C-alpha cells in the first residue's frame, strides 16, 4: 500500500509521528530509552510502557519548526497519568519558553487514567493551562483527532482549548464515553452498542457541522499532515492568544446551539435543522463529498 493511503486510525502513535512530520525530522524528548515510566502502575500490578503512552518531541512540518505530542491509544486507552501528563505539560511550557511557532497534539485518549486518578486529573488541568499559556506566548496549538479511542474526558476539554481541531470522521471528540453514560443513565439514554448513534453523536462529521472542529479529512496520515499545515498557517495569521471578542463569539455560538438544538434528541434532527437536505446520507459520504455537502451549513467555528 502506498504511503498516501496509510491509515491514521490504524497507525500507532510512533508511526503517526514518523509519517506525519517531515521525514526523519522528529527528535524525541525523554525517549523510551530514558525509561521514564509510571511510578504508580507497578504498585497496582499493571503493565507499564517506556514512554508512559505518549511520544513528545520536536520536528519540522513543511519545513517549519514545531513541537509534537502523540498519545498511544493502545496503551491504557491513551489515558493520562502523572508522567504522561507531565510530558505534555513540559512540552507545552518549553514551546512557550522557546516561542516555537506551533505545537501539534495528536490526541487519542479516554481521559484520566484511573490507576493514578488524582495525578491524572490535576495533570489534565495543568495541560489545559499550559495550552492556554502557550497560546498566550504566541504558539499555535493544533489538535488532531483520528484515533480509534477518540478524545474523551478532560482531554476532550483540552482539545477545545487549542486553536484548532482537525478530525477524521472516524475520530471522536466528546466528554463522557457512551459506556459510561449507559452505565450511569441506562441503555435508553445512550445505547453504547449502537455504534452508528455513537458516531453520529461524537464523530468528526457531527463535530464539524456543529463548529467544534475546524477541518475534517479522510482517514489518512498525509491528509492529516496537509490539514495540520493549513491549520497552523490559519492560526498564525491571527493572534493565537485568547481574546474577549473570540470568547464572546464562541459564547453566542454555544448559546445559539442550545436554543436551536437543545430540544432535539438525535443528531440527524440537528443536521436537518442546519439545512442538510438528506441527513441520513451524511454518514456514508467520504470526507470530500461531506465537506462539499456540509460546509455551507455548518455553524461557524472559532
Amino acid at each position, binding site marked *: 500500500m502506498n504511503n498516501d493511503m496509510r491509515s491514521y486510525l490504524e497507525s500507532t502513535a510512533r508511526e503517526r509521528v514518523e509519517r506525519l512530520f517531515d521525514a526523519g525530522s522528529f527528535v524525541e*524528548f*525523554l525517549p523510551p530509552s*530514558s525509561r*521514564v515510566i509510571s511510578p*504508580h502502575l507497578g504498585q*497496582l500490578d*499493571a503493565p507499564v510502557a517506556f514512554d508512559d503512552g505518549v511520544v*513528545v518531541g520536536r520536528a519540522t512540518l513543511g519545513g517549519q519548526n514545531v513541537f509534537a505530542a502523540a498519545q498511544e491509544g493502545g496503551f491504557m486507552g491513551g489515558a493520562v497519568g*502523572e*508522567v504522561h*501528563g*507531565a*510530558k505534555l*505539560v*513540559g512540552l507545552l*511550557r*518549553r514551546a512557550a519558553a522557546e516561542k516555537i511557532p506551533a505545537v501539534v497534539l495528536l490526541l487519542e485518549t479516554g481521559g484520566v487514567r*484511573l*490507576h*493514578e*486518578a*488524582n*495525578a*491524572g*486529573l490535576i495533570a489534565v*488541568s*495543568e495541560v*489545559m*493551562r*499550559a495550552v*492556554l*499559556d502557550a497560546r*498566550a506566548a504566541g504558539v499555535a496549538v493544533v489538535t488532531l483527532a483520528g484515533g480509534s479511542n477518540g478524545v474523551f*474526558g*478532560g482531554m*476532550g*476539554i483540552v482539545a*477545545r*482549548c487549542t486553536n484548532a481541531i482537525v478530525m477524521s470522521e472516524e475520530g471522536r*471528540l*466528546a466528554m*463522557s464515553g*457512551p459506556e459510561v*453514560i449507559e452505565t*450511569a*443513565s441506562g441503555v435508553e*439514554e*445512550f445505547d453504547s452498542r449502537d455504534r452508528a448513534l455513537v458516531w453520529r453523536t461524537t464523530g468528526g462529521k*457531527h463535530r464539524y457541522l*456543529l463548529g467544534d472542529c475546524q477541518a475534517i479529512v479522510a482517514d489518512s496520515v498525509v491528509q492529516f499532515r496537509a490539514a495540520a499545515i493549513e491549520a497552523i498557517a490559519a492560526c498564525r495569521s491571527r493572534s493565537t492568544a*485568547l481574546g*474577549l471578542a473570540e*470568547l464572546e463569539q464562541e*459564547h453566542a455560538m*454555544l448559546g445559539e*446551539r*442550545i436554543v436551536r*438544538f*437543545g430540544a432535539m434528541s438525535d443528531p440527524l434532527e*440537528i443536521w436537518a435543522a442546519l439545512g442538510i437536505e438528506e441527513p441520513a446520507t451524511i454518514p456514508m459520504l467520504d470526507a470530500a463529498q461531506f465537506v462539499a455537502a456540509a460546509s455551507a451549513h455548518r455553524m461557524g467555528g472559532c
Partner: protein
Amino acid sequence: MDWQTLADALFPRGHSLSEIDHFLSGIAQSGEQTIAVVGTTGHAPIGVEIALAQARFVLQTVREHAGKHPRPPILMLVDTAGQRLRHRDEMLGINSYMAHLGKCVELARREGHKVIALVYDQALSGGFITSGLMADACYALPDATIRVMGLPAMARITKVPEQRLVELATSNPVFAPGPENYLRMGGVQDIWRGDLAAQLEQALATTPAGDVRSRLGQERGGRNFTQRVIEAIMAGSDVLAP
C-alpha cells in the same frame, strides 16, 4: 455545607449571592474588596446550560471591568457531582461548553482578575477541571469530597482488590479520594479550617502567579515525578533529576 451558611461564613460583611437551578452568582464583600462570586450548589451535575451560565457570569465580569482598575477577584464555589451524563449533553458538545468556561476563567486571569476557588462540598472529575482546577489557587474545606472515582468502582475497573487499594492509599495519594490527597499533590493549595472569612482574605492577598501546582506537589511529596519530568523536558535532558 449549604451555600447560604457558607456565604455567611465567608462574607460577614455582606453578599448578594443568589441561586437559580443550582447556579450560584453574585457580588460579595471580602475585607475591603468587592469580589465576584460564581459557582454551583446541590451537587449539581454540570451540563451545557450551567457551564454556559458560569461562563456568562465570568465574561460579564471581565467585560464590565475592561479598562478599569482594580479588577475584582473572582471566587468560584465548587459543589458538583461531575459532568452531566446524558446523551443530549454529548450531542451538543458538552466538552466545548466546559472548555469555554475554562477559557473564560483564563481570560479573566489574563485581564487582571485574581481567580480562586473553594471546594465546599463535592468536586468530582469533569466538573472540577474547568472550575476549581482552573483557578490561580484552589482551596477546600476539610469535609469536602474530591475525587475522580471511588475505590469500589476503581477496584472493579482496574481489577485490583479494593482492600489492596485501601492499603496502598495510606502511603500514596495518587488515586484515593479526599482533599488531603489533593493537597499533598499540589492540586489544592490549602485546606481551610476555622475562620473562613479570614482565610479568604489571606488567600486573596497571596494568590500565586502562574501554575505552581507541579512544584507544590513535589515540595509536599505527593507528586514526585511531575516537576522533574517537566524540568527535564524544559532543559532538554534525557534523564530526570534525582
